[in-house]
């Protein structure tokens, strides 16, 4: 870790600082990609490096701190004569490009509390009954909830009624658990070249739809090796006839914390790749 006091030096070095740790970035890279590459975890659900940013889950909100008053004043700051920080603004780290000299707060009690409330809302909006879900233990939503110390849903649950699509021979869509992150929408468009999914409707009526004549997976071109099938961070898109092959208790997030695992690494190498 490089020590930094002066933002102008940092600008010359093309670095940003997250929670006091100075890290490099490539031109055009977002804050979250620079952070993940440097091994700094910023909670996220709708982000995946390589797919276009979406900015919908809002878990990766970070504070960019305006430190104008402290520029060139390192000595006075050390002596406590000027305030460390002035103002800050919250941005989504997955859509905000990294800019030289940014001073960012990420792992703070305030941000993590806000992230926990967002996660609680995601749980109460859908039907996330972990004990009955095949994806339990491999679910990033669940793992993020563990990371944030979420114990309950806090809000009155919606218990929405949503359609299940089990028409396809190998792929199943359980909308009860869909968090509308659009990872499958983007993966299908950008990686699989198929455009299989979209979000229709607004607000509480927003839902994942399938691009086929009948609107059912059976009539679509989806295949079990598509990235769109494997990128789902929850148990909304499942592969049939593989249920509980890995027992509960021995799954990815039973053995690892979410910050240890980049989402891409949770996909078994033999799947999700063509």
């Amino acid at each position, binding site marked *: 870790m490089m020590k930094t006091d002066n933002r102008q030096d940092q600008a010359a070095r093309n670095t940003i600082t997250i929670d006091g740790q100075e890290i490099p970035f490539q031109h055009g890279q977002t804050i979250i990609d620079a952070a993940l590459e440097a091994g700094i975890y910023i909670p996220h659900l709708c982000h995946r490096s390589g797919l276009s940013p979406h900015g919908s889950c809002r878990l990766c909100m970070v504070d960019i701190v305006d430190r104008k008053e402290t520029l060139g004043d390192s000595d006075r700051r050390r002596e406590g004569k000027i305030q460390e920080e002035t103002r800050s603004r919250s941005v989504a780290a997955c859509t905000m490009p990294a800019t030289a000299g940014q001073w960012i707060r990420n792992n703070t009690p305030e941000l993590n509390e806000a992230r926990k409330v967002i996660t609680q809302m995601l*749980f*109460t909006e859908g*039907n*996330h*009954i*972990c*004990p*009955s*879900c095949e994806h*339990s*233990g491999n679910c990033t939503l*669940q793992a993020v*909830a*563990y*990371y944030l*110390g979420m*114990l*309950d*849903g*806090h809000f*009155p*649950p919606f*218990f929405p*009624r949503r359609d299940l699509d089990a028409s396809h021979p190998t792929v199943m869509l359980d909308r*009860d658990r869909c968090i509308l992150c659009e990872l499958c929408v983007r993966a299908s468009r950008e990686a699989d070249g198929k455009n299989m999914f979209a979000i229709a409707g607004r607000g509480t009526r927003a839902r994942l739809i399938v691009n086929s004549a009948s609107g059912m997976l059976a009539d679509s071109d989806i295949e079990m090796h598509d990235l769109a099938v494997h990128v789902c961070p929850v148990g909304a898109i499942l592969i049939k006839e593989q249920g509980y092959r890995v027992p*509960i208790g021995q799954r990815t997030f*039973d053995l690892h*914390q979410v910050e240890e695992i980049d989402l891409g690494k949770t996909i078994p190498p033999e799947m999700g790749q063509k």
Partner: protein
Amino acid sequence: MTRIRIATTSLAGCFGCHMSLLDMDERLVSILEKAEFDRSPFTDIKHCGSCDIGLVEGGICNEENVHVLREFRKNCKILIAVGACAINGGVPALRNSFQLRACLEEVYLHGEGVENPQIPNDAELPLLLDKVYPIHEVVQVDFYLPGCPPSADQFFRMFNDLISGNEFSLPRKLLHFD
């Protein structure tokens, strides 16, 4: 020394959380040196006296659940939602995707092997609610112990924290929803 009084109940649950509590095995002895059970399936006491801690397993699926839960809230200084069902309805809440009538008809009228099909309506039977609810929809809950069921280690940790007057906290490796 007065021992801490603990009441427990299972509402719309499967008693799995109670089984997991008993899974503390010999560690229960150390707990029972400082605590004793009031109303609980362990004691068969029918109504709750004044208690320090109330543990509620299961969600709310019928009117009797609501009465029991209110009795617990009234008598327990600290009320704890134990397990997935108490916290968000859990597996019983899977029926919330269907109309209550459709559930009853499926089970008692159209179910396989049903003889003399009829929906039970004995006055002794508690009326079912339209949906299965988490307990925090009915009463204020002080703490949550997630898991399906919470492990014996989680129970032990919780009892130790509460008996010694510490703030209850779960280390991340003990936190799970399944």
